[in-house]
């Protein structure tokens, strides 16, 4: 079983990431092949994904890889193939819906703008390929059990009657539940509508931008923002779902801007941190710490230790500090440092003290609140970046 997970990653996720960075290197950031490889390695060496797929055991990398193939094909203007891959990803795991609005709006906008020469043929070909793939996927089930099967599948796949959140997840509902007890105020149906409304509001900025301005530069940013919005506001989210926003977020490493890189590293760490309760239950705490430290070390985030070591006269790299660990913006510096401090504090408390009797989930809840705060801030930042990028391009034109 473990080997199947390894192999599926090897054959689907890794080639997809390589293709993505190759494309980015060629058309976007003009990175040299060695840099491309380094970026790809940094994307692949993602502790959260490794630990969930191979420790907790899931096949996320298949779905992520298929979505990545869709992205790559989209970047190369193979729209039909892109939609086929995306439908496959959806068919593998319904979670790929987190990406769906962006794909949908991008493809739509590519087809219908400019109005004067609407590309109907393209629209039809995309539609046909989507339908065809869906039909192909469901055909075996229909063949065996008639159309009732499909409804059964849909019910299984989208369990809306399970409540707004199950475990402690670092999203809006769970975090604000500390103050407002939603389940007492609203009924299940009202909650569904509320979450739908909030999700729509959350994905609106990115979707609208990509609809108005279908630019390849914005695509990854919009994916990141949109899937993060889904994670934050939608119904029935798992801790593991953070992997979905995390994939496009790590793809942002292709922006060779040090500020972006440090932000991405930060959010990757927070994502790992947000899964701590789950991993602790799975007895993966050792792997959690080691992988976390190792990835940060490889990213150069721990180079500040080196400075202190040099004072202690231990022979270490005489290289200058390569990447700035913190972004230049003072506000973000403050946020990042304080969030790390709080996270460390929580770990220490969690290890040494039992939570108070009347609040048995205190540590978990504070973990949720802290990660939620960080995700929320990051989401705002991505939206800010999207708008900034979208408008700056207008000026350039």
């Amino acid at each position, binding site marked *: 079983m473990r080997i199947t997970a390894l192999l599926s990653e090897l054959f689907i996720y890794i080639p997809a990431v390589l293709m993505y960075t190759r494309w980015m290197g060629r058309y976007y950031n003009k990175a040299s092949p060695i840099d491309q490889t380094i970026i790809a390695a940094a994307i692949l060496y993602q502790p959260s994904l490794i630990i969930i797929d191979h420790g907790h055991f899931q096949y996320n990398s298949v779905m992520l890889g298929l979505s990545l193939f869709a992205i790559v094909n989209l970047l190369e203007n193979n729209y039909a193939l892109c939609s086929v891959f995306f439908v496959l990803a959806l068919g593998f795991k319904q979670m790929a819906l987190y990406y769906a609005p962006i794909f949908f709006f991008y493809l739509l906008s590519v087809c219908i703008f400019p109005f004067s020469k609407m590309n109907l043929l393209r629209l039809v070909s995309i539609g046909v390929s989507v339908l065809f793939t869906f039909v192909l996927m469901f055909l075996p089930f229909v063949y065996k059990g008639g159309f009732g099967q499909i409804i059964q599948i849909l019910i299984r796949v989208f369990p809306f009657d399970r409540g707004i959140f199950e475990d402690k997840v670092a999203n809006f509902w769970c975090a604000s539940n500390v103050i407002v007890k939603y389940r007492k105020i609203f009924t299940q149906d009202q909650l569904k509508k509320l979450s739908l409304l909030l999700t729509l509001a959350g994905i609106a900025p990115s979707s609208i931008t990509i609809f108005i301005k279908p630019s390849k530069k914005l695509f990854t940013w919009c994916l990141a923002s949109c899937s993060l919005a889904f994670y934050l506001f939608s119904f029935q989210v798992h801790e593991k779902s953070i992997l979905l926003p995390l994939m496009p977020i790590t793809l942002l490493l292709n922006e060779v801007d040090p500020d972006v890189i440090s932000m991405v590293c930060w959010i990757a760490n927070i994502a790992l941190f947000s899964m701590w309760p789950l991993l602790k239950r799975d007895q993966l705490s*050792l792997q959690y710490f*080691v*992988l976390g430290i*190792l990835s940060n070390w490889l990213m150069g985030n721990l180079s500040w230790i080196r400075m202190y070591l040099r004072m202690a006269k231990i*022979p270490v*790299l005489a*290289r200058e500090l390569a990447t700035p660990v913190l972004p230049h913006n003072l506000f973000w510096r403050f946020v990042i440092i304080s969030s790390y401090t709080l996270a460390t504090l929580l770990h220490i408390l969690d290890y040494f003290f039992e939570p108070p009797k009347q609040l048995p989930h205190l540590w978990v809840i504070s973990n949720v609140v802290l990660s939620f705060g960080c995700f929320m801030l990051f989401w705002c930042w991505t939206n800010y970046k999207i708008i900034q990028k979208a408008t700056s391009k207008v000026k350039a034109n």
Partner: protein
Amino acid sequence: MSTQYNFSLWNIWVASTLLKILLFPAYYSTDFDVHRNWLSITKLLPLNRWYLENTSEWTLDYPPFFAYFEWFLSLFVPASVSQDGCISLLAKGEFGMPTVIFQRSTVIVSEIVLFISLQYFVSKSSNLKEKKRNFVVASSIVLSPGFFMVDHIHFQYNGFLMGILVFSIVNAKLGNYLQCGFWFAVLLCFKHIFLYIAPSYFVYLLSAYCLDSRARFPTTISDTFNYVKWKNLFRLASVVLGVFAVAFGPFIYYGQLYIVLQRLFPFSRGLTHAYWAPNIWAIYSLIDRVLIQVALRVPGTAPILSLIFKQLDLERLKTANTLTRGLVGDVEFFVLPNIQPNHTFLLTLFYQSLSLVPLFLNPTFERFIGSMTLCAWASFLFGWHVHEKAIMLIIIPFTFLIPRDRKLLPLYETLTASGYVSLFPLLFGSAEWLFKALLTFVWFVIFSNSFNEVCDFSSTTSRRVFILDRLNFFYIVGLIPLSCVIQLLDIQSRNFEVLQRFEFLRLMAYSTYCAIGVISSWNMFSWLYFLDDTLWERREAKQKAH
């Protein structure tokens, strides 16, 4: 920026340590309980009871320094770990994860000695080219899959012992003979398996430090007297004896020296270990097994065989005719003559002394390392009850020689490939298979390439035998299907009863196939050692010749 290297093992240390921490929950062998028991013995009992204690079958059978080392470690056992069952004298230890974490981290911490010694080795190189080379040597040693498998999964403390050996080797290279002798004496008092290479140390230090090489070869008594540098001899002797006195002194005081020595050298064990180490005796046992089958299956061969070898008792043969036999480690041969301890001892001594003669006549550093390698090799191939782990004792000194000449590289590749693969059966779980196989493969590819880059081409005409080169290559590649197939059979043996009966056959396949590699690389090395003199000259002399 990239033109300036700094040759620091720091990054390797960080990365490999994190990897080793990930290995914490992996399989551990009975050696783990052995060391845990020693911790308890040294913690709970007074010194004079250490070598008498026998509650558990894992009695203390390492020399005193190792016992002191365990005592030192036992000072750091936290209360939570000792409550977990780490410190208790039982026949069989009962412990949980905290004990495992504690003991595994002691291995990692003690291995720092190896890193420090190799960093010292790198920093002592004279020029940039040599530094580059030594860095490759150093990193190949610290990343060696042998340490990962034996120390960090199987559980032993070889890392820091090898570190001490490296200290001694570096001092020999620098010409600090006293320190070289000192470190080696310390090492011997840690683990007596290093006696394998003691002859070459003895001859080297005697010839290079205690004898006057410029003087005439002694013919009269007074000549002999002048031939010896008495001052050096006394210095060295006092250092070495001092170390031994510190180690064994307390036990001599209690009058237990004999007991200690008896613990250290148990001759009651069999010729081969439960799993045959890949040496001559593996091949010998294989031939015996094959002949048993021949005698039983092919009519008419039994009388011929008994004519050649020894009187065959067919009844006994039939009872012996199970392939599972051998798991208990019995050493009775049914067709071939039985082997006694003194046979193996004589064979070992013979091959060791062969390698010592050139060293005595021409005590250069290169010869010294060469003879050390050969001594370890001879003991490994012919010794009594050799563990497969002793292969590290050949590989580690050998690594220091590789950059000398490209000619050594192919045989080093054969040796490391077969040697490390022969360690695979130590970790028989299927969970570790991917790790050990991948690690060995990656290590092999990386370092055979980097050695290829930094090695010197020999100035003499290179004698490459094309067929042998190819054969070598095919042999090494053959190890991959070997280990894959055996692992598959291992997994399948859970499903099929038939395969379980052949478990020993699988181990036999490992040890005989690897034995071929170890023995043939030994042949190649001996050839170069005895016949290719330019390889072993002092480096300065070689440079002058150019």
